[in-house]
């Protein structure tokens, strides 16, 4: 199970307990209460110093106003339990617990609230468009994840937040003495902390994208960060090589783009759509209609294996088998070392050389399985030197 799925399941359970009126942090067993660090934890909780979502500083910093979009990533019960429903901004919640989302939908329906979206999913892969939110928060969530996930999550926060957008998040301070006790506590809740990044390292990860202020909550070994997304200069040079060709008709633009950048990424297709004034759907439709366009990264060397009639009659099926065997990939894929990508094509028009293939515009004819393999090996040798 993925980390976020474990967390989801655990919160599903918390919801069930909550329905029965049980606060899992309150009714702790005696052996935890006997821990020497328990009193400090208890104090922090009672003073409102637990870095929780109801910390008034969060609302003060985000300063939600009407017409703004707010995204609450993880722990979306805030809408119901922490008064977020009263914020003038439009609420969008993402929570990994299906039960939480179910509960919130019921809450929204019952109270006749208007929200932007309630989505059951992981906070590192949201369905929102880039630069969509004015403000956002991810409080009490990142502690459950390791560095690779946290990296993805930060990049996602950055993606969906507007330039100069404000965001609050918190992380455990793994260098704090209170950390030991907090780990025991979370373990007992069935969602052990996995967070493995020191504050210094985490701040280094934030710095390229956000300016920030830090507030420490020593009693619970947490740190809150108040982030402002840096006004990234829009890359004026992005895809600038394509500029002179934007008038050459959609297919011509896409051909040029593929020639320049190797393949057509989603970002590149979106750029073409914007610049040519066509809808993204149309650009995507055209890009997928024609065999020439590649929507995946290509290898440095591109193999086109002919499947024309003459090649078929002369044994192209065996050549295909040999090519697949030598490359270790199937049609339409790229080898792991990034050297080769391989596609079948209807006809190269080299029928008198059948069976034939073309590698980067050069035709190879009268192939046998052995000859095809030898050609590929030779190129691989050139490429690895």
């Amino acid at each position, binding site marked *: 199970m993925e980390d976020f799925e474990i967390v989801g399941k655990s919160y599903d359970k918390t919801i069930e307990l909550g329905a029965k009126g049980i606060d899992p942090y309150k009714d702790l067993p005696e052996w935890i209460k006997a821990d020497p660090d328990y009193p400090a934890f208890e104090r922090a909780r009672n003073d409102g110093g637990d870095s929780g979502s109801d910390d008034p500083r969060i609302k003060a910093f985000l300063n939600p106003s009407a017409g703004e979009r707010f995204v609450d990533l993880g722990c979306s019960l805030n809408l119901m339990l922490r008064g977020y429903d009263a914020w003038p901004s439009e609420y969008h919640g993402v929570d990994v617990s299906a039960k939480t989302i179910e509960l919130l939908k019921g809450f929204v329906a019952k109270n006749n609230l208007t929200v932007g979206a309630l989505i059951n999913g992981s906070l590192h892969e949201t369905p929102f468009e880039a630069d969509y939110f004015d403000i956002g928060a991810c409080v009490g969530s990142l502690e459950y994840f390791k560095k690779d996930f946290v990296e993805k999550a930060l990049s996602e926060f950055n993606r969906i937040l507007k330039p100069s957008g404000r965001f609050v998040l918190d992380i455990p301070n793994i260098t704090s003495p209170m950390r030991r006790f907090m780990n025991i506590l979370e373990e007992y809740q069935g969602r052990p902390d996995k967070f493995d990044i020191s504050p210094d390292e985490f701040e280094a990860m934030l710095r390229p994208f956000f300016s920030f202020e830090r507030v420490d909550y020593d009693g619970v070994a947490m740190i809150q960060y108040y982030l402002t997304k840096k006004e990234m200069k829009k890359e004026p040079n992005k895809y600038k090589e394509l500029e002179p060709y934007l008038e050459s*008709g*959609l*297919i*011509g633009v*896409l*051909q040029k783009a593929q020639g320049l950048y190797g393949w057509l990424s989603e970002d590149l297709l979106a750029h073409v759509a914007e610049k040519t004034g066509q809808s993204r759907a149309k650009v995507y*439709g*055209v890009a997928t*209609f*024609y*065999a*020439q*366009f590649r929507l995946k990264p290509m290898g440095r060397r591109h193999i*086109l294996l002919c*499947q*024309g*009639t*003459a*090649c*078929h*009659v*002369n044994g192209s099926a065996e050549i295909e088998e040999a090519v697949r065997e030598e490359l270790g990939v199937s049609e339409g894929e790229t080898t792991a070392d990034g050297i080769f990508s391989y596609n079948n*094509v*209807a*006809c*190269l*028009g*080299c*029928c*008198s*050389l*059948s069976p*034939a293939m*073309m590698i980067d*515009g*050069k*035709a*190879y*004819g009268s192939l046998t399985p052995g000859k095809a393999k030898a050609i590929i090996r030779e190129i691989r040798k050139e490429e690895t030197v």
Partner: protein
Amino acid sequence: MRLSVGRGSCGIAAGADEALNILNEAGLEAGTVGCIGLCYLEPIVSLDGELYVKVNKEGAAEIAKAAKGQDNNAKDWLISEGDKAVLAGQQRIALRNCGIINPEELEAYGLYRAYEKALTMSPEAVIEALKTSGLGGRGGAGFPTWFKWDACRKSAGDKKYIICNADEGDPGAFMDRALIEGDPHALIEGMMIAAYAIGHPSAHVEGIVYARAEYPLAITRLGRAIGQARAAGYLNDSFDIRIKEGAGAFVCGEETALIASIEGERGMPRLKPPFPAQSGLWGLPTNINNVETYANVPYIILNGPERFAEIGTESSKGTKVFALTGKIKNGGLVEIPMGRSLREVIYGPGGGVRGGKAFKAVQMGGPSGGCIPESLLDTLIDYKALTATGAIMGSGGMVVMDEDTCMVDMARFFLDFICKESCGKCVHCRIGTKRMLEILIRITEGGGEEGDIERLLELGQQIKDGALCGLGQTASNPVLTTIRYFRNEYEDHIAHKKCTAHSCKALIHYEINRDRCVACGLCRKACPAGAVQGAPKVAHSIDQDKCVKCGKCMESCRFGAVLIN
């Protein structure tokens, strides 16, 4: 001394550039020519009118000596009398310059004399000449060229388009590629004459060549030729030609789909009328012809339409270029006068079936065409006669099949192609071909059921009746013709689970004849699946459960002990 190297795509792939380097390094100036059509003899070097074939490094060195007048063994590479006859058996009009002149130089082509002559005639007279010549569209259907030009001329408008369809999509055809690579100026001149006929200069006419992106050399040479024609003043602001690279879609060979593609849309055909001559590219009058059609035009204008019309049959005039491929001995391009029989082509310039195998069928017209059996080889090359067989003239692909080709598998191959290339607009084509393909796959994998043939015939007829465009309407032809002429093969697959061509893997098995086996162990070593059992001095056998039917055992056996059933 006249020295040149055949540098079409196929020549280059066969090693023409190596030969060229050796000649250049010897201090000789070897020119470039396009493909002469003898693809099976590439690389080809021409010295003072003599052809040297299959020229490897040694050959090139000997030819270099010959060119310098030194002692040499170049005659070892000299073309044989038999191979010379392949050229002699043709009548070259469209290919008149291919393999003869340097396609990269306008001087080699000379002045556009046909165009200049056309300018002395009225546009109506040019169209009348086309009518007299009887030239039909070489893209496949043979529709009268003059009729299209006339309709476009009569369409009112200040702006019109001349398009050349060079999106040669039929698998097994490469006439247009060789033509552009070998003689691009013939195409440009043909398009210029067409532009004049439909209304230039009183209407502004723009020329577009829609070429396959898979033909990089053709595009380069055509681009260079267009540049030369501009420099010479033939092309200018009032009539210019540009190249539009296609992006790979078979359906774009259909003219309305081609137009959609130039407009930047998905290449989907639309209903006709209106015809492109009335409302084509960007809604303006547009004339679309194929490469070979345009290449014939300068000849007709220059030599008079009567001379062209003398060649051929009542309904099909002139010559036709064919790409001979498959199991043919002399694979390559040939240009044949209409009215000869298929047999004359295949056993004349084609040299018959390769490797002494028995002829089974010839496939014509690509995915829209059909397979013609031995019994109909005396059919004449004529639009009507070929259509009567269930195949079509097509753009010129002629793929020869021998006894090892399974006709059910061929039908499956074409349906697979059509299925992938269907644009998806009509249900009949999109889903109907898929259903037919599923049945064919089932049959070739041993799951054929009684009634399958009838189901295929029924679906095939429905697709013919229901599809919108020409490609959809002909999509079932490969299946319908193979059922018509090779029904026994279908029945063998379905009823007896037998593939007599030994091509369908699911229906064959390999066995070892224990009397012939000498237990040498070669097949055991060759087997990738560990299916061959045996020990030294013990006759081997094949475990049918493990066998993957790759045929490696049969290839490796030196005693003919491995049999296929």
